C-alpha cells in the first residue's frame, strides 16, 4: 500500500466511520502544524512559570529569535528540497564558503551591498552545483551533498588560508543583531517575511503546485510533462541562496569567520524541516512548518541553557527530535490509513 493517507482538510466532514476510530479521526482532522504550535505554546507557558524572567528577558528572547531566524531561512529551502524528494546535507559547509567569501570581500573594502549580493550569488552557485548533479547525474541527493559538503569545506579552508577573518564591518552586526523592533530583531522579521512569501508561492503560484507534484508522484509528473529537472535545479539553487542569507546573519551574529563556521548547521536545519512536518518521502510539507520546527528546536536548546542542563544533552535531544518527528509522521500516516472511511 502506498502512503495515500493524509490529514483531512479543515471543514470537511468525514464519512461516517465506526465509533472506535472516532478519536483517531479527530486527531487526523487537526493539521500537524496545529499540534506543533500547541507544543510551542505549552513550552512557552512552562518556561514562563519556571524561569519566566530569564526567558522573557530581552537579551534571551532576541538571542533566541535570531537563532530561530538563522535556522528558518534555509529551512524554507530545505522544506522545498525535501518536498521534491531530495535532501541537502552540504549547506553547513556552504555557510562556510559564503562566510569566507564575504569576509574576503569586506577585507577588500568592496561596497557593503555588493558584498551581500556576492554572498548570495555564491550561495546560489553552490546550490546550482548540487541541483545539477542531482537532476542530470541521477545520483542520490545524499551522496551528492555528502560529497559537496567536503568540497565546500576544502574551498573554505583554501580561501581562508589558515587564518581567521575578523574585519567584519559593524554595520552587518547592527543590521542583523542590534536593529530590533522591541525585542524582535529585524532578522527574525526578515525570516518571517520570507516564510510568508514562500508560503504564498507554494500555495498560490503554479510553480508551488509543480514542486508538490514532482515529489508526490514523480512518474505522474513525468508523464504530465512537468519540467522535473528544472524544478530540482530550482529548489537546490533556492536553498543555496537562502543558506547564503543565513550565512550573512551568522557572520553578523558572531563577526568572525573560522574554518568551523557553519559546521553541523545542516543538521539543525534538517531537524527544523522534519520536525515541522515535512514528509521525508516527498510530496508533503509546509514552509510554515520550517519556522515552527526551528522555533521548537531552538526553544528546547534555550530551555536547556536556562535550566542549566549540560549542553551535551542538547545533542541527544536534537537527535531524538529528528527521529521522533519522522517516526510520528510515519505513524500518523499509518493510523490515518486505518481510519480512512473511503476508498
Amino acid at each position, binding site marked *: *500500500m*502506498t*502512503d*495515500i*493517507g*493524509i490529514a*483531512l*482538510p479543515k*471543514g*470537511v466532514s468525514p464519512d461516517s466511520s465506526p465509533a472506535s476510530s472516532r478519536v483517531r479521526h479527530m486527531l487526523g482532522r487537526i493539521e500537524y502544524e496545529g499540534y506543533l504550535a500547541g507544543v510551542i505554546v505549552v513550552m512557552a507557558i512552562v518556561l514562563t512559570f519556571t524561569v519566566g524572567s530569564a526567558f522573557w528577558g530581552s537579551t534571551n528572547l532576541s538571542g533566541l529569535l535570531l537563532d530561530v531566524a538563522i535556522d528558518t531561512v534555509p529551512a524554507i529551502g530545505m522544506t522545498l528540497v525535501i518536498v521534491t524528494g531530495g535532501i541537502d546535507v552540504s549547506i553547513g559547509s556552504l555557510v562556510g564558503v559564503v562566510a569566507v567569501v564575504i569576509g574576503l570581500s569586506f577585507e577588500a573594502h568592496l561596497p557593503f551591498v555588493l558584498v551581500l549580493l556576492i554572498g548570495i550569488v555564491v550561495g546560489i552557485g553552490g546550490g546550482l552545483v548540487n541541483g545539477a548533479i542531482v537532476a542530470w547525474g541521477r545520483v542520490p541527493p545524499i551522496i551528492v551533498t555528502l560529497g559537496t559538503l567536503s568540497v565546500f569545506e576544502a574551498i573554505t579552508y583554501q580561501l581562508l588560508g589558515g587564518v581567521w577573518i575578523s574585519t567584519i564591518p559593524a554595520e552587518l552586526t547592527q543590521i542583523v543583531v542590534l536593529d530590533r523592533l522591541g525585542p524582535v530583531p529585524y532578522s527574525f522579521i526578515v525570516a518571517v517575511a520570507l516564510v510568508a512569501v514562500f508560503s504564498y508561492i507554494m500555495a*498560490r*503560484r*503554479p510553480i*508551488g*503546485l*509543480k514542486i*508538490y*507534484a514532482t515529489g*508526490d*508522484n514523480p*512518474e*505522474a*509528473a513525468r*508523464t*504530465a*510533462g*512537468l519540467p522535473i529537472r528544472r524544478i530540482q535545479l530550482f529548489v537546490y539553487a533556492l536553498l543555496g541562496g537562502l543558506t547564503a542569507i543565513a550565512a550573512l546573519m551568522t557572520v553578523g551574529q558572531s563577526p568572525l569567520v573560522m574554518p568551523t563556521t557553519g559546521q553541523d548547521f545542516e543538521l539543525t536545519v534538517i531537524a527544523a524541516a522534519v520536525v515541522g512536518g515535512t*514528509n521525508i518521502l516527498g*510530496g*508533503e510539507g509546509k514552509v510554515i512548518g520550517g519556522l515552527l520546527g526551528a522555533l521548537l528546536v531552538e526553544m528546547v536548546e534555550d530551555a536547556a541553557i536556562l535550566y542549566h542542563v549540560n549542553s551535551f544533552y542538547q545533542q541527544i535531544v536534537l537527535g531524538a527530535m529528528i527521529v521522533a518527528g519522522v517516526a510520528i509522521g510515519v505513524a500518523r500516516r499509518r493510523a490515518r*490509513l486505518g481510519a*480512512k472511511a*473511503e*476508498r
Partner: protein
Amino acid sequence: MAAEGHRGEGGELTARPGADETGTRPPGGGGTAGGVGAPFARLVGVSKSFGSTRALSDVDVTFARGRVHAIAGENGAGKSTLIKILMGVLQPDHGRIEVDGSPTAIASPAAARALGFAAVFQEPLVYPHLGVLENIFVAGPERSRLGDLDRPAMRRRAAALFEQLEVDTALLDRRMGELRLGHQQLVLIAKALIEDAKLIIFDEPTSILSGAETAQLFRVIQRLRSGGSAIVYISHRFEELEAIADSVTVLTDGRVAGAFEARPFDLDAIVRLMSGRETRGYGAAPAAHRAGTTGPPLLEVEGFTLRPYFEDVSWRVSRGEVLCFYGQVGAGRTEMAKALFGDLRPTAGTVRMEGKPLAARSPRQAIRAGVGYLPEDRKAEGIFATQAISENIVATVLGRIVARLARYVRRSEVRNLTDSQREALQIKMAGPSAPISSLSGGGQQKVILGRWMVERLKLLVLDEPTRGIDVMTKAQFHEIIRQLAEEGLAVVVISSDLPEVFEVADRILVMRRGRIVAEFANDGTAPPEEVLRQAVALDQADAGARGASANGNGTIVDVGGVSVLVPSGDPEEKEVTGQ
C-alpha cells in the same frame, strides 16, 4: 434479457437532446468540428511486435464522435498495446493513425494529449497528497491577472463539470489520496475534459468499482457521448457492452476477429470470436489427465475472503492434479493466490493442508509448508535481474545447501542444482554465472520455475506462467506442468489464456468478481465458449436474474435509459480500502 428490451432506446441515445440541461459548456468540447458519428480517429493496418511475439497485426478500427466504441478481447489479445499506441507510449511497426482524416504521428504522451486523447486507467495515476482541484489543474492551472493560481476560477470550472458529471462537488475540497478509486477515476475524467479531451479511453474501468460507482460512471460516459466525445471502452464484461457500447470490435491474438456496428450485439458470436474457437487450436485434452482428480484433497480452502478482491472462495486440489483458475483481469485470482502464499492477509476463511490448518503469515511459512508461488509480474516480483542464473535458482533453498558446521553455501550443490534444472528445463544459457537478465523472457521464466522445482513442494501455484512467452517455450511449459502433476505435485495454474487452460487443466474453476462462479472438468465435455461465458457473466442464470431482478440478487439501475444489473454482492458503504 431485460437489457435487450431497452436496446432501441439505447440506440436513440446517441443523439439524445437535452443531455446538457444546465446550459453550460457541454463536456467533451461538444463544439468541435464534425458531427455526431463522424470519424475522429482511425487506426489503419496497425501492427506491433515485441521480439517474436505479435501483439497487434493489421488492426483497423475507427473511433467516431459521439459514439462509445468497445474493444473486447481476452487478456493478452492486444488491448493494452492498442491503448499504448493511441496514447503515444508505443509506436506502431506498420500502419498509420488518422485523426480527422489526416495521417498523424503520435510520438509521445504529450503529443497524444495535444491531440485531445486522454486515458482513464483502472488504477489511476494521481498525486495522492494534493487536493482534487490541484490534481485536475496541475499541468495547466487557471491564473489570475497576476499569474497566481486562480482557485475560485478553477473551482467554478471544476464544479460546473462535476455537477454535469453528477459528482459531489464537496470532493473538490478533499485530497486525492482520500478518495476511493471510483471517485479518482471520475476526477481524472473531469481532468481530461478540462484539458479538452476529444477521445477518452477507459481501460477496464469498472473491475474494482462498486455497483453504484459503476452506474455513475456509465451515466458519465453517456453524457460524454452526448457531448460529442469519442469514447473507447475496453472491457470484458458483457453486461457493460450491452449497456453502453454503440459498437464492438473483438480482438483475438492481436487481430480484429470481428466488428459489430449496431445493436443488438450477437453476444454469442462475440464470445465465440473471443475464445477463438475457429482460429485457434484446442487440442483434445490428453486422456491421461484425469488420474489424479480422484485422490484425497491435499489442500482445502474454505470461505477464503479478502474484500474487495475475493470473497467466500472455497476449493480443493489433490496430489497429481492440475487445477486451473480461469477468469478476467481483476477477478481476484492473483490476490487469492498471494493470500494463500502468506503475502496478503485474508480476513476470513480457513486453509487446510493434508487436513492440518495452514495459515501462512509470510511467504516463508508457506514455503516451509510446501507451497510455492510463481508470480505473475516476472520483472517486479520474480527475477533478481542483475544476479547470476544459478543464484536465481537457489534463492529459496539456500538454507538447505549449507555445510553443516562452517555454514557456507556449498558450491557443488549450487552447481548441481543449476545443472539439473538447466537440463530438465532445457534452459539455454552462456553459463550459470551469466546474469538472468541476459536470458529471454521465456528463459527467465524457466529459471524461476526451476527455483521452485529444486524446492520440496507439495503444491505449486503458477500465476500466468506463459504470459509474453514464445510459442515453443509455452508448449514446453505445458508439458512440464503436466509432468510435475504426474510426479505427484498438486499444481494450480492461474491463466487468462483459454487454450492454455484447456491444454493443461484437469479441472477448471472460473472466477468472476472475486467469486468462484463455475467449475468444469476438462474431459472434453466443457466447450471453451461456455467457460469464457462464465468468466464474462454471460450465462443463463445471470440473464434470468437480470430479467427478473426479483430474486434479490441485484438491483436494476437505469443508466441513461438502459437498465444495468448491479450485483448486490458489491459492498458499497462497507467497502474495504485499498490494495
